[in-house]
């Protein structure tokens, strides 16, 4: 009898992120878990994906993924192309060639609208954060986006303080009427995976992670997602995926714990 595979929540999330990528796709990646998910996909089922970083980096092979930010040259190592915003966000993303964009944020609502700008009252007292960077551009122009966030009630909110990066706005075709391409296809948290209803565009529970209950998922959100009658359990990472993350992709364990 084999012992049950031990893995950390972030390893399950990275495996879930990797499953969202198909071989041959072009992916824009920010930092953190999306980098691990993308390198994991590249080392397993999607060896021919193209990875781009907005500031002008194509297909890097960094020794370390534990870096200070996109401006850290460690993440540019062994790239195939060093180029510019105009190229990456312009002639690739704006042109419509990006299949998947990874996003994260401070807050998200039931229609996948993301806030990375501020918390509080925009016209009164607020706490300022990063703003858009390329986030709004990816949300507006990628053919689909995959959002990765921690599952906390204050982050999964009824309304966001500020829409930095539009999801489906108020649903029912508003995004399409704005002339925006694509839209969010998945939200991956540390408790569950969500999709979006094809008609209403409201968030819909797709699977619940092992050792997590439906009640735990719903009580840590400030809005009600659509909950189908039968919600499956999220597929856990395989032993090989866990090995790749620990030994090859993130040996420093930057995202562990």
């Amino acid at each position: 009898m084999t012992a049950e595979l031990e893995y950390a929540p972030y390893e399950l999330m990275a495996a879930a992120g990797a499953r969202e990528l198909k071989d041959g796709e072009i992916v824009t990646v920010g930092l953190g878990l999306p980098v691990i998910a993308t390198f994991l996909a590249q080392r397993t089922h999607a060896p021919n994906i193209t990875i781009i970083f907005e500031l002008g980096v194509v297909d890097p092979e960094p020794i370390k993924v534990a870096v200070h930010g996109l401006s850290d040259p460690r993440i540019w190592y062994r790239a195939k192309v060093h180029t510019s915003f105009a190229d990456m966000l312009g002639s690739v993303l704006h042109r419509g060639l990006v299949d998947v964009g990874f996003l994260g944020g401070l807050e998200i609502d039931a229609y996948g609208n993301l806030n990375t700008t501020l918390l509080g009252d925009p016209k009164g007292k607020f706490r300022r954060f990063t703003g858009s960077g390329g986030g709004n551009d990816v949300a507006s122009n990628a053919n689909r986006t995959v959002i990765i966030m921690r599952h906390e009630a204050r982050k999964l909110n009824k309304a966001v303080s500020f829409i930095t990066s539009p999801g489906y706005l108020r649903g029912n075709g508003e995004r399409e009427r704005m002339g925006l391409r694509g839209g969010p296809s998945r939200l991956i948290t540390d408790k569950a995976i969500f999709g979006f209803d094809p008609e209403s565009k409201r968030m819909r529970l797709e699977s619940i992670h092992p050792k997590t209950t439906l009640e735990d998922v719903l009580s840590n959100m400030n809005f009600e997602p659509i909950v189908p009658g039968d919600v499956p359990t999220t597929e856990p990472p395989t032993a090989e995926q866990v090995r790749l993350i620990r030994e090859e992709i993130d040996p420093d364990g930057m995202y562990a714990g």
Partner: protein
Amino acid sequence: MTKVATLAEAVASIPSGVHVSLSGFATARCVMAFAHEVIRQEIKELTVSQCVAGMDADILVGAGAADRIVYGGGSRGRTGQHYCLRRGIENGTLITEEFSSLSMTFRYLAGSLGLPFIPIRSLRGSDILKRLQESEPSPVSTLNDPFTGEEWLVLKPLIPDVAVVQVQVADEDGNAWILGPRWDNEEQVKASKRAIVFTERLVSTEAIRREPERTVIPGFRVSHVVHLPFSAHPTSVYKVYDFDADHIKQYADASKTPEGFQEYLDKYVYGVKDHWGYLELIGGMEYLKSLAADPVLGY
């Protein structure tokens, strides 16, 4: 014709109140020596612009040299927010015109091409756009595509008075190479009325002529060339030196409060005569050699 100037001469060419576009991105190729000298020369009321905020914009805003920023957002990544920008935005003392990385790039690109406006698919449906539409005069509008009739958001071009750019290699005419990713630097320079180049290495024009395909900034756009080693410290210059993690942490901690930030300025900006004094203060060559980039890694 030589355009080589001292740091003080190049900075003295910048009057108060102009729009300066900066080459920094978070903790890479920020024009730090330039920013320090602007603060020492008491130049005020600058508008600064860049796609993603760097430490150069943060220190200029914190020291009161710049009171307006046009940018696409940004932080220092894992070492936190740009605290001077955050304070200025939260307390309303910093006039902010906020976009996204691509919309900033497109504004510079339109400026560089001499176009009256540029259409873009970004920003629509966002609160970023709502704010820009409310500002007077608004830098955004809409227009129908004359070919398809489809409505498009259009942006006003951005034409800075001066681009200030940190590069690895330049000649005395300002022909310059930027190694590694270039983010918005090329469009910034070409949109601006002139450029000031800070270079780690000053080479002969003959050396430039032997590899002209590497030249990103042509000399005819450049007014001053400042040859100053470690002029981006504590940020990185790809293939020349790494960022100084310890000094960045010191800046990050200090800039969390106005008092701490003032102490930082008193020590590292006002407390030294010039850039050479700054380099001595942080430990001189003995310390700086530890930051030298490995030629294979680039950092």
